[in-house]
C-alpha cells in the first residue's frame, strides 16, 4: 500500500503497466497477470521484448504468436481459453455474448438454438475445472455438429 501510494505520489497519469519476467503459458487471461508483475499483453502475445532484433518486434508480437484470431483453425480454442469464465457462465445460463460470439466462430447464425443444446449438456462440456480449451472446443463443436444445431 505504501509503495503504491508513494509511486502514485510521484508519478501517475495514464498507461497500463507491465513488467518483464513473465512465463507465457497458453492464451488464457493468465495466472500470472498481477501476481508476479508480468503482463497480460506479453502473455497473450508470447513474445519477448528483449533483443529488438532488426525491425521485428511488432512483426513478431503480432505475427507469430499463437494467440491470434487468424484463419489457422485455432481461433476458437484461443477464444475459449481467454473467455472461459464468461463462456461457462453463458452456457450454464443459456445466453450471452461469449456464447453468441463462439457460435458465430463456428459459422452458425442462430445462437439462440445452439444455446439450449449446450446448456443441456453443460456437464459433459465442463466435466471438471481441469478441462482444457481444446477439450471444450472439441466437445462443443461435436455437440453442435451431432445435434445439427447449427444453421
Amino acid at each position, binding site marked *: 500500500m505504501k*509503495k503504491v*501510494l*508513494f*509511486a*502514485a*505520489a*510521484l*508519478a*501517475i*497519469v*495514464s*498507461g*497500463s*503497466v*507491465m*513488467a*518483464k519476467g513473465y512465463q507465457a503459458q497458453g492464451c*488464457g*487471461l493468465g*495466472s500470472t*497477470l*498481477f501476481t508476479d*508483475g508480468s503482463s*497480460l*499483453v506479453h502473455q*497473450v*502475445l508470447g513474445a519477448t*521484448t528483449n533483443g*529488438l532484433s532488426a*525491425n521485428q*518486434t*511488432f*512483426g513478431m*508480437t*503480432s*505475427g507469430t504468436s499463437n494467440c*491470434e484470431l*487468424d*484463419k489457422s483453425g485455432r481461433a476458437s480454442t*484461443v*477464444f475459449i481459453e*481467454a*473467455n472461459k*469464465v*464468461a463462456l461457462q457462465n453463458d*452456457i*450454464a*445460463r*443459456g*445466453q450471452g455474448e*461469449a456464447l*453468441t*460470439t463462439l457460435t*458465430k466462430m463456428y459459422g452458425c447464425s442462430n445462437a439462440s438454438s445452439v*444455446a*439450449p443444446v449446450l*446448456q443441456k449438456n*453443460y456437464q459433459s462440456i*465442463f466435466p471438471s*475445472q481441469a478441462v482444457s480449451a481444446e477439450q471444450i472446443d472439441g466437445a462443443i463443436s461435436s455437440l453442435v455438429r451431432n445435434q445439427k444445431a447449427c444453421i
Partner: protein
Amino acid sequence: MIRGFLFLALFTFSSMASANELLQKAAELNLAQDKTWLNLLHYRSGMFGTKSEIGDSRYYLSSEGRTDAQSELAATIKAFFIDPYSGISDQHPACRFPARYLYLKKKLNREIKVNCPKLQYYKDKMEAKGVALVFSSYFLDTPASAFGHTFLRFLKNPDKEESYELLDYSLNYAAVVTSSNAMIYAIMGLTGGFNGEFASLPHFYKVREYNDHESRDLWSYELNITNDQLDMIIAHSWELGQVPVPYYYLTANCSYFMLALLDVADPNWRLVERTPHFVIPVDTLKSVAQVPGLIKKVHYRPSKRKVFEKRLSSLSSEDKDLLQKAYDQNDIKIFDSISDIQHKAKLLDTFIDMWDYKNSKAITKEDNETLQKKNQFLIARSQISTPSQKLIGETPSLENPLLGHGSRRLSAGIGYHETRKNFFDFEFRFALHDFFDSLIGQNPLATMEMGRFKLRYYADKKKAPHQWRFQEAYLLNVQSLADFREFFRAMSWRFKLGLRTIEDRSCDACQVAHTSLGVGISRSKMNHILSLLIATEVDAAKDYGPHNYRIGLGPELFWRYQILNKASFGLLADYKRRFVNDRFQETWSLGPQSRFYMANEWSMDLKGEWTDRAYLGTLSLLKTF
C-alpha cells in the same frame, strides 16, 4: 563488353532521370514540409528545434532522418521507387514503412510491385472496417490507471446490428516497466526511462482485463473515417510497432500516441496540437470531439460490477437477503426454497455475477478451489432451461467521460481573515477533480487531484507576517470513497502529500511538509456523500519546535450534496489530537463550502473556515479548461 557498359550507363542514366523526376515532383509539391509527411515522421517542435520524437535509427532511411525531413523524404523515395531491392520481401522498405508508401504512392502517382506477407497477415486478421478510441474508466487502485487509459479498437462489423465486438482487434501502447521499485518506477516513468511498446491483440483480452478483472467501464468512441484514412492508420501502426519509443507518463504516454497515430489519417484533425502538453487520457477524447463530426457513435460497455448492480436492482429485499445468505454460507441450497423456477434462475444469475465480481482476482488466477465451487452453481443453473435475462445496455450518459469538466483548473478569490484582514488567493490545479467540481462524466465518489498550488496575498502588511505566501502546494490528494452498503462493504480511504500552511492552536502560519492517510466508511445516495474517516497526519518543518514535526490523529466528518449543473453544498468537520513538542494539543476546524456552476465551465465558490485560532472566508471564481 562495350555494349554491356553502354547498357549499364543507359540504365543508370534512366534511373537517375526517374529519380530526379520524382524528387523534383516531391519538391514541387513541397512534400518535405507537408503536414502528413511530418506526422508520419513524428516531428515535433520543442525547445531545441524541430525533430522527431522517435529516436531509434531503424525508423529512418537517412542518417539525418530524425532532424531533416527533406533528407528522409529523398531517402524514402529512392528506397521505394528507385534502388533495386534484393533482400527478403518482408524487409523491403515499402513493407517496413507501409504508411509512407501509401502516402507517396498517392502524391507521386507511382506504384511498385512488392509483397509483404507479414504485413498482409497483420491486416487480414484485423479485418478492420472502422476504428474507435476506447477509454477505460478511472481505476484508483493502481497509480498508473488513476486517470484512465485509452487504446484503439479496430471494428470488424461497425454498422451491423450484432457487432461481435469481442472478435475485434485492439491496439495498445504501454510502458514496458522493468522495475518494481516504486522510486525507480516513478523516476523512470517521468523521464522516459522505460520504453513504450505497441501491441495489437484480440479485443476480448481487453474486455476481460478491464471489464471483468478490474471492473472498469469501457467507453468506445467510434470515428467517422474513410477507408483510405483507416488504411493509413493501420499501416502507420505497423511502422510504429517496429521500434521502441521512450514512454513518458505525463506527456508521451498511451493516450498521446493514440492521437499521434490518428493524426496521419488527416492532417487537418491536428489532434496532438489540440491536446495540452501534459496528456491526461480524458483530454485526448476531448481533442477528438473538437473535430466536427469525427465522433460517429458512443458505445458503453459496463463493468462486471455494473452488471451485478443491474441484476441486483431488480430483486426484492427478501431476494437480496437470500442472496447474501447463500453467499455467506457458500451454499446455493438456500435457493431451493423458491418454487418458481424462473425466479430461482434469476437469483442464480445474480449470484453468479456476484461471485465473479467478488472473486475476480482468484478467478483470473484460475484458483482451483474458487472455480470448483463456482462450477457447482453453474451446474445448478444449467439445469434450469430458462435463458437468463438479457441486460439491455442503457448508456449512463451522465457518466460519459467526454462530458466531464476540463482537467485543469484556475481560480482567483478574495477573502477575509479574522486577524489578518483582507487577502487574495490564486490557485492552479493541474488535474483532475474534487468533490465540489461538477460530477458529470467523473467518478462520483472520488477526488483525484495532482499538482494543486495556492498562492495567498495579504493586503495589510502590518497585520500579516508575510504578505505573499504559498498557502498550499499539494502534489497529490486522493479520496476514494465507497458506498458502504449491502453487497458492497468496501472501505473508503484518502491520501494527501504536499506542502501546506498551518494556522491553528499549535502554530500560526507555519509552512510544513504534510502527509496524511485516512480510512473509514462512507455512504452515498442521490448525489449525497457522507463519510467518516479516521486520519493520521504528519507535518514537518525545520523551524517547527525542537523536534521539527508534529503528528496527529482524529476523525473527519464530511458531507456534500450536489444538484447537477447547479450547485454543491458541503461541510467538513475535523478534529485532531496532536503530539507537538513533547505535549498533546487538540485542534479542530469546521469548513462549510458551496459551489455554483455557471456556463462555459465557470463556477463560483464560497468557502468558510472556522478553526481554534481564527475564522476566515473566501469567495473565488473558478474556470476549468
